[in-house]
């Protein structure tokens, strides 16, 4: 392996890690909903893409600087998240995990089809920020848009952690996640917290959707199923319900997949991501940060 190969390898890993910030955000969304409700929200990635589309629609009506697109996407994501909570979870018995699994699949298909219907099936270009900035660090080049995305992802994760660990709402959310009955006895309304969790994860997802759109350059409903798969893989590798785990696992999966894309080509790339997951399931089934034993 020559010097240039090493440089190229490191370069592709670095690009992957930067893009992995979006996987981290998606993983956080899955993990938070699972932590609080012990339910899977399969429509989450589709809702994130939907929020990115919604931000485009708003931006085409109102003239605003391109940076607002991320705020708008977060806002739209929050609204969509709440709607998903109402149609998929609120009125379905909590004791029946299969029913909510299926209803979120219905929501996934519905969101995808609304997008296809509204765009006549044509992918929509998405504005990238700082795409003309390229930073040269020694032999490496770092793309400005990816760096901006990474910074934005880190900022949103930081805000989320502050929200969860430094505010009253965060304490209530974590209380419901740990012991729903005790939380209810303390006067916390569980439906309210569940709904708010969906709003929070929706905002995070909306930002992730906008970041994905900005990094790839186009938005398409075809993105939602692969992103669902990646988000779930990140959730499991990071450890269910663990936010730091989801962050690290997202960056890990991003770097890992770009590394194998460099070595083995785009068709085999995801095969190795699955192998990474199986490796974790066999040797560390609880994920990077497995929760204390006795809870699932």
């Amino acid at each position: 392996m020559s010097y240039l190969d090493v440089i190229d390898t490191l370069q592709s890993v670095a690009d992957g890690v930067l893009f992995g910030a979006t996987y981290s955000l998606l993983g956080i969304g899955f993990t938070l909903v699972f932590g609080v409700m012990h339910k899977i929200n399969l429509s989450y990635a589709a809702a994130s893409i939907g929020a990115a589309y919604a931000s485009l629609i708003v931006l085409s009506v109102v003239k605003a600087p391109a940076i607002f697109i991320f705020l708008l996407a977060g806002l739209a994501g929050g609204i969509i998240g709440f709607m998903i909570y109402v149609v998929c979870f609120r009125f379905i018995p909590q004791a029946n995990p299969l029913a909510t699994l299926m209803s979120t699949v219905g929501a996934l298909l519905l969101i995808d089809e609304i997008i296809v219907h509204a765009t006549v099936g044509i992918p929509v270009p998405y504005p990238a920020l700082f795409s003309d900035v390229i930073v040269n660090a020694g032999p490496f080049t770092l793309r400005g848009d990816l760096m901006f995305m990474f910074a934005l992802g880190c900022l949103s994760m930081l805000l989320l952690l502050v929200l969860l660990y430094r505010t009253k709402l965060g304490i209530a959310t974590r209380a419901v996640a740990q012991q729903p009955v005790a939380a209810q006895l303390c006067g916390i309304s569980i439906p309210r917290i569940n709904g708010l969790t969906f709003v929070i994860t929706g905002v995070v997802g909306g930002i992730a959707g906008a970041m994905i759109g900005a990094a790839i350059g186009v938005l398409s409903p075809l993105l939602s199923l692969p992103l669902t798969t990646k988000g779930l893989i990140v959730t499991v590798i990071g450890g269910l319900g663990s936010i730091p785990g989801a962050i690290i696992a997202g960056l890990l999966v991003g770097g890992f997949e770009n590394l194998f894309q460099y070595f083995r080509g785009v068709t085999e790339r995801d095969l190795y991501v699955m192998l990474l997951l199986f490796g974790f399931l066999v040797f560390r089934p609880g994920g990077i940060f497995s929760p204390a034993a006795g809870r699932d």
Partner: protein
Amino acid sequence: MDFYLGLAQIVGVHTLLGLSAYCVLLTGQVSLAQAGFFAIGAYVAAMLTVLAGWHIVPAIAAASFVAGATACAVSFPALRVKGLMLVVATLAFGEAVRLFFFNFDYQVAKGEVKIGPAGGEGFRQIRFFPENGWSTLDVLIFIWLFVALVMAGLWWMDRSRAGAVLRAVGEDEVAAQSAGINVTAVKVAAMTVGGFIAGLGGGIFAHYTAHIEHAQFGVALATFAIAYPILGGLSSVFGTLIAVVFVQGFLIEGLRFLGDWRNLLFGGLILLAMNVRPRGLIDAATIAAVKRMRTSNKEPGNARTQGAE
């Protein structure tokens, strides 16, 4: 007429797929790997008839055994985890199988053309039915023979001790374990039977579509596989059949006149169905009602006392 025969073929194959997920769901496990087993069955059966020149019956039998063996092998590591972890593990397995066939290139020169699975282009030359002069109706009868066989087998199993054991594990694992049931063995057995049925469905699917490629066996198909039994309800095998007819016959073909709007309605109706009937279209209450109706028809005197209660 051919359209309806074709539709009945699709319903038959999807019923097999749904029943394969039904077996696994009875034990309370959600497996998104059924599309993977389906793909294995499809590729193995097609390769046996096209490349090895087998008859279709031994070919799909062999394909079912391969898919069942794979399911058995996969279930040992996969069943160490449960809940969401299992969903993701099986989803990843299904995707890994799909990606394997995406990269799987095994072509043999026969005459001047090369035949066999060709990676991303798929496997084209599956012509067992036309070569042997089977009409659409013959194929239809062939498919439904297997569907009837599998449904009868599962229906009988449901009424036997094995069905009770499966449901016990599905309802409450800890209680089942303390009643002396080997939970892992039950789950592995259910996965194996599910994989076997999925492989059977896949083998038939490959032969009536005549062209298979990796994209047909994606996450969407895996989701459909678990959607049928969940929508139909886990109380009876007929729930799965009714859900397949509902989805394939009504939602996909019946609403075709709506054009573009049909797809929008599709997800919406699944949402509505889950909100209105969270335990499936045919739940335990429906079955009890049907049974009551049957007994009251036989014994009118009995019905009056029941009505008075």
